[in-house]
């Protein structure tokens, strides 16, 4: 026992180093799984308060651009409203809206946003109290922005599209091909669309939107447009580079998307796991 004590005393410095590094590494590893990092979850509220204090001061500098984007969005929604109104009038068959999956949107401000790490995060100023929950999508008025990973009472933390964990089912509008979109860690406005087989004709400028199998985003939410493409090293699939629609660098206002009935759907899917 004494010898053990002497050993510990003699090597306390390297042992302490190993202990601290082990703690740090275990934090890194625990973050690789959803819902598991209890330590950081409990600090999320503190983090959110600090950032929203800073954000509430700097918000005033962005009022004009925020206003402009709201006006644009309003104009677009109005245009959409008028076209649907005309459609309903011209044919009198009503569809039962309950058959369609619908979505609730909750507006929120981004209080903190990183872009130059390998895994980037958005801190949003709504939390559990306003209905935010993990695995809900975050969209801007221009397209997809992230997925909520942790929530605290008044704030939530979302992985940004610029993150290695981010993956979304996507569809090319022009030919209906379905693949998945990820970020390769290089440019803040460029995503990669994979799993599109090489016999499909791809053209620069084609639009890519959220596909039908996404649990986070409504179908047809814009993702981006095709910038360039190349064959993967194996040769049977494309790597298609997309220009991201959302201006992720200057993200201020977002909507948290809640898919109605998603719990029911997930419960059903979990039956076979």
């Amino acid at each position, binding site marked *: 026992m004494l010898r053990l004590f002497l050993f510990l005393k003699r090597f*306390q*410095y390297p042992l*302490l*180093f190993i202990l*601290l*590094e082990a*703690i*740090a*590494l*275990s*934090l*890194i590893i*625990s*973050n690789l799984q959803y819902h598991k*990092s209890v330590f*950081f979850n409990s*600090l999320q509220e*503190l*983090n959110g308060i*600090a950032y929203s204090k*800073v954000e509430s001061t700097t918000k005033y500098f962005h009022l004009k651009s925020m206003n402009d984007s709201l006006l644009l969005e309003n104009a677009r929604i109005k245009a959409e409203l008028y076209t649907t109104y005309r459609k309903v009038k011209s044919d009198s068959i009503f569809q039962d809206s309950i058959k369609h999956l619908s979505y609730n949107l909750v507006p929120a401000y981004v209080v903190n946003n*990183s*872009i*130059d*790490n*390998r*895994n980037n*995060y958005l*801190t949003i100023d709504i939390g559990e109290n306003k209905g935010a929950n993990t695995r809900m999508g975050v969209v801007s008025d221009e397209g997809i922005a992230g997925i909520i990973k942790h929530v605290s009472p008044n704030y939530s*933390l979302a992985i940004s599209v610029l993150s290695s964990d981010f993956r979304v089912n996507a569809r090319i509008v022009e030919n209906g091909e379905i693949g998945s979109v990820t970020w*390769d*860690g*290089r*440019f*803040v406005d460029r995503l990669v669309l994979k799993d599109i087989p090489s016999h499909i004709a791809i053209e620069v400028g084609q639009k890519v939107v959220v596909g039908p199998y996404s649990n986070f985003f409504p179908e047809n939410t814009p993702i981006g447009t095709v910038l360039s493409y190349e064959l993967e090293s194996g040769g049977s699939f494309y790597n298609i580079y997309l220009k991201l629609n959302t201006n992720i*660098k200057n993200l201020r206002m977002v909507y948290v998307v809640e898919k109605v009935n998603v719990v029911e759907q997930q419960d059903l899917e979990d039956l076979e796991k």
Partner: protein
Amino acid sequence: MIRKIIIYIVHFLFLVVLQVFVLNNIHLFEIVHPYIYIYFILLLPVSIPKTSLIILAFLLGLVIDVFSNTYGIHAAASTLVGFLRPLLVGQFVSDSDPDAIIEPHIRGFGVRPYIIYSLTMISIHHLALYMLEIFSFRDFGFTLLKILLTILISIVFVLIYELLFFLKSSDEQ
């Protein structure tokens, strides 16, 4: 002594706030931002016990982690720097009179040794940080470019901080 400790605490808090609320929002070329918080480990006195140094380094990294949503990578990199610092400082202090240098600054070290000292520490930190963050050798050329750019920018910020706060204060003492 108490006054010294308070000064160090103020530097700790100031560096954390500067890092988290100012420098984390600077995105040069859209891929790098400077890390200045590591300067706190550079500035601690030479005589500080090794174990306190390493614990302080760990805590510093952890605080940065909490505010940058990075989950332990800053803590790991910063602890590594704290662990290696005594070895490195030994290189510079043993040459001259050990009593003369109480804190590692340009004043005591000289310009060239100080730049070598801070550059080595920052390089170790950034290398560890980015390798942990990216965690793969894919696209290694790009990662290396990112690391080199970040080191260059961080060293500029660290030297500015050093010149602002310590060229004058060492005159007073």
